[in-house]
C-alpha cells in the first residue's frame, strides 16, 4: 500500500512531450485490455482466450484484485466442465491420465493448477509483498486439495515447501513467506493423515526445526526464524516424547545457543526477544509461552532466573553501553525479587537503581517507560 522506499526520479511536470505521448499510449493500451477483460467476464465468456487476457492484465498490475477473482471464476468453470465430462473421457486424455494414476478429470485439473502455479512464480519474485498473489496461490492449492486425491494434492503442497524456502532465501523476513510456510506445513501434515500436528507420517516438525537452525546460522538477526522456532517447540517435544530430563537438556541447549549469539552481537534486538521467550516459558503469568520444562514450577523458574541474571550480568563486560542488557537485568531481577523477596544479596536494590540509571542515560527515547518502571519497581 502506498509507495515504499521509492526515491523520486524526475517529476511529472518536467516530462518531455515524447515521454508524455508514450505514457498516453500506455494508458490507452491498458484501458483497452481492462475493458476487454471486464466485458468478456461480464458476458460469462470463460474461454481460454479470456483467461490469457487476465494473465496479461495481472502481469501489468498484480494488485488488481478483481481480475484475480475473474481468473478464479474461469478456473472454477473449467474444473466443473472437466468433472461433468468425466464420464466421457477422450482416448488420448484417458491414456495420459492413466499414466499419471489419476482419473481423467482430476488429471486435467492437476495440469491446469500446475500451470497456474507456474504463472505466479515470476510475479511472486517481482512482487513478493503483494497479498493477492499469495492469496491466489493458496486458493489454487486449496482447489487441488478439494478436487484431487490426497496423494496428488500432497505432492503439490510439498513442491510449495521448496518454493517458499527459495523465497525466504531471497528475503528472510518476508512475513507473507513465513505465513505461507506455516500454511504449507499444516496442509502437508493434515493430508498425510497425521492427525496430531507433528506426529503424522508427514510429520515435518523435525525438519522444520532444523530449517530454523539453518536460517539462524546464516543470519542471527532473523527474528522471524527465531519466532518460528519458538512456535515449533511444543509439537517438537511431544513428538520426541521428551521426558523431564530431555526437556531440561533441550532448554539448556537453547539457552546455550542464544547466549553464544548474544555474545556475538548483544545489540541485536531479535536475539533478546528470543532470550525473553525462553524466560517466558518459565513464567506462568505469560500464557503465550507454554512451558518447556515438565514439571515447571516456582523452583525451576527461580533457578533459571538466578542462572540467567548471572549470565547476562557477565555480558556487561565490554558492552556497558548496551541498553538491552540493562533491560534484561531489570526485568529478570524484578521477577526474581517477586518470587524470592528474601533473595536480596543476589540482586540488591542499589544495583537495580544503578542499572536503571544507566539505562535512562543510554536510552532517553523511552524515558517515559523507564520512569513508569521506576515507579512500578519502587526504586
Amino acid at each position, binding site marked *: *500500500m*502506498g*509507495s*515504499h*522506499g*521509492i*526515491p*523520486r526520479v524526475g*517529476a*511529472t*511536470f518536467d516530462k518531455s512531450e515524447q515521454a*508524455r505521448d508514450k*505514457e*498516453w499510449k*500506455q*494508458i490507452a493500451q*491498458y484501458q483497452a485490455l481492462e475493458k476487454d477483460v*471486464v466485458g468478456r467476464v461480464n458476458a460469462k465468456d470463460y474461454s481460454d482466450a479470456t483467461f490469457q487476457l487476465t494473465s496479461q492484465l495481472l502481469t*501489468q*498490475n498484480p*494488485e*488488481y*484484485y*478483481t481480475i484475480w*477473482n475473474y481468473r*478464479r471464476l474461469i478456473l472454477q468453470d473449467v474444473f466443473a466442465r472437466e468433472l461433468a465430462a468425466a464420464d466421457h473421457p477422450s482416448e488420448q486424455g484417458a491414456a495420459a491420465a492413466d499414466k499419471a494414476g489419476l482419473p481423467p478429470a482430476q488429471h486435467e485439473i492437476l495440469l491446469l493448477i500446475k500451470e497456474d502455479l507456474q504463472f505466479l512464480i515470476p510475479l511472486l519474485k517481482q512482487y513478493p509483498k503483494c*497479498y493477492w498473489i499469495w*492469496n491466489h496461490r493458496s*486458493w489454487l492449492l*486449496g482447489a487441488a486439495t478439494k478436487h484431487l486425491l490426497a496423494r496428488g494434492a500432497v505432492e503439490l503442497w510439498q513442491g510449495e515447501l521448496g518454493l517458499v524456502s527459495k523465497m525466504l532465501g531471497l528475503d528472510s*523476513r518476508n*512475513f507473507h513467506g*513465513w*505465513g505461507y510456510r*506455516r500454511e504449507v506445513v499444516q496442509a502437508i501434515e493434515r493430508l498425510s493423515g497425521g492427525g496430531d500436528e507433528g506426529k503424522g507420517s508427514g510429520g515435518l516438525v523435525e525438519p522444520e526445526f532444523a530449517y530454523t537452525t539453518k536460517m539462524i546460522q546464516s543470519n542471527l*538477526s532473523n*527474528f*522471524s526464524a527465531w*519466532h*518460528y522456532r*519458538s*512456535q515449533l517447540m511444543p509439537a517438537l517435544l511431544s513428538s520426541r516424547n521428551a521426558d523431564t530430563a530431555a526437556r531440561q537438556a533441550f532448554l539448556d541447549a537453547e539457552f546455550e545457543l542464544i547466549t553464544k549469539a548474544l555474545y556475538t552481537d548483544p545489540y*541485536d*534486538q*531479535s536475539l533478546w*526477544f528470543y532470550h*525473553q*521467550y525462553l524466560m*517466558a516459558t518459565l513464567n506462568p*503469568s*505469560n500464557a*503465550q*509461552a507454554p512451558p518447556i520444562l515438565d514439571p515447571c514450577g516456582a523452583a525451576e523458574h527461580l533457578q533459571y532466573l538466578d542462572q540467567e541474571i548471572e549470565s547476562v550480568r557477565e555480558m556487561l563486560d565490554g558492552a556497558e553501553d548496551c541498553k538491552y542488557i540493562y533491560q534484561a537485568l531489570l526485568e529478570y531481577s524484578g521477577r526474581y525479587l517477586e518470587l524470592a523477596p528474601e533473595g536480596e544479596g543476589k540482586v540488591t536494590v542499589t544495583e537495580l537503581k544503578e542499572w536503571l540509571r544507566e539505562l535512562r542515560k543510554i536510552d532517553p*527515547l*523511552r*524515558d*517515559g*517507560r523507564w520512569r*513508569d518502571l521506576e515507579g*512500578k519497581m519502587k526504586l
Partner: protein
Amino acid sequence: MSLAAGPGRGHVAEGQLPEELKLVVDKHVAYIQSLDTRRDELEYHLTEHLRIGGIYWGLTALHLLGQPDALPRDGLLEYVLSCLHDDGGFGAAPGHDAHILYTGYSVQILTMIDGFKALEEKTPGGKQKVATFIANLQQYDGRFAGDQWGETDTRFLFSAFYTLSLLGYMPHQRPSEPPIIDVPAATAYIKACHNFDGGFGVAPGAESHSGQVFTCVGALSVAGELDSYLGEEGKDRLGAWLSERQLGSGGLNGRPEKLVDVCYSWWVGSSLAMIDRLHWLDKAKLTAFILQCQDPEQGGIADRPEDMVDVFHTVFGIAGLSLVGYPGIGEVDPAYCMPKHITARIQRP
C-alpha cells in the same frame, strides 16, 4: 482521488534546521485536492483498485487539518455510492468486486460526509444490507473472510468490527435484537494470535507485526475487551514491544530490525495510545521525523525522507502528529483513524 505516488518527495527545505520544521498545512491540502487531476499518468490508472482507500485517507487527512470541506461532498457521495454492490458490499472503485476492506473505507467516508441518508435513499434498507454483507463473511471459527473467495486475516476482522459499529449494528448497540455476528468467537480468534512478546500476528503462530497489533488492539477496543483482556501486565508487555519500534532517527519500524517508515507512526502510535502507553515514545523526535518526510514545496508526506510522497503516508503522518498533540491538528480517534468529534457519536460497549 489517486493513490499515484508523487509528484513531490519528502525532504528538508534548504537552510532549515530540523527544529524549525513546520507542518505545511496549506501545501498538504492542495496536494490532496490535486490528486484526482492526474489522469494523464499511467500510475493513476494502475492504482484504481485503491481509489476508495485513497478517498478515505485523503478525507481523513483534510478533516484533521481542519479543512473537511476541501473536497466537494457531492462528488464524493456520488463516487462512493457508485461502488456499492447489490449484496451490500463496496468495491474499491466502480465495477470492482466487493471486499470487506473497501466496504469499511466506504462506511468511514459516508460517516464523515454524513451520507447515510443518501445511502438509504439510493438503496432502501442500505445500512442493514451493508451490515448483512459483513456478517455473512464471518467463518465458523470467528474469523472474517475478506470476500466470497475466503482469504482470512485479522485486518478483515477489525474492519468488520469498526464498520458494524459505525453502522450501529454491533451486538452491544442492539441489545434487544439477536446478534448478527459472534463477537466472543471473533475475539477468541484474536487472542489466539497473541504472542509471548505482547504483540499480535496475522494468524495464530505468526510473528508479531505492528500493523497486526493495530488491528487486533483496535478490534478488542471496539468490542470493549481491551482492558479486561490485556490487564496492566499485558499492556506493559505489548507497550514494551511497541516502544522498541522507535529508532534513533525518531521514526518507528514495524518489526525488530526493520527500517523506519512514517505509516508505522500511526500503527505503533495508535496502539500505544489505546493501551495508555503513548508516553513510552519520544514524541518530539517522532514529530521531527514525520516533518522531515513531508515535501515542503508541493505537499504530501513520504515513507522516509527523500522518498516519493503519497496520500497513504500523508494521512498516517498527519494522524501520527495528531496523536502526539501537534498544534493545530484535530484530535484523532486511535481505533477508527477518524476525527474524534465524529467517532464520539458511536455507542461504545
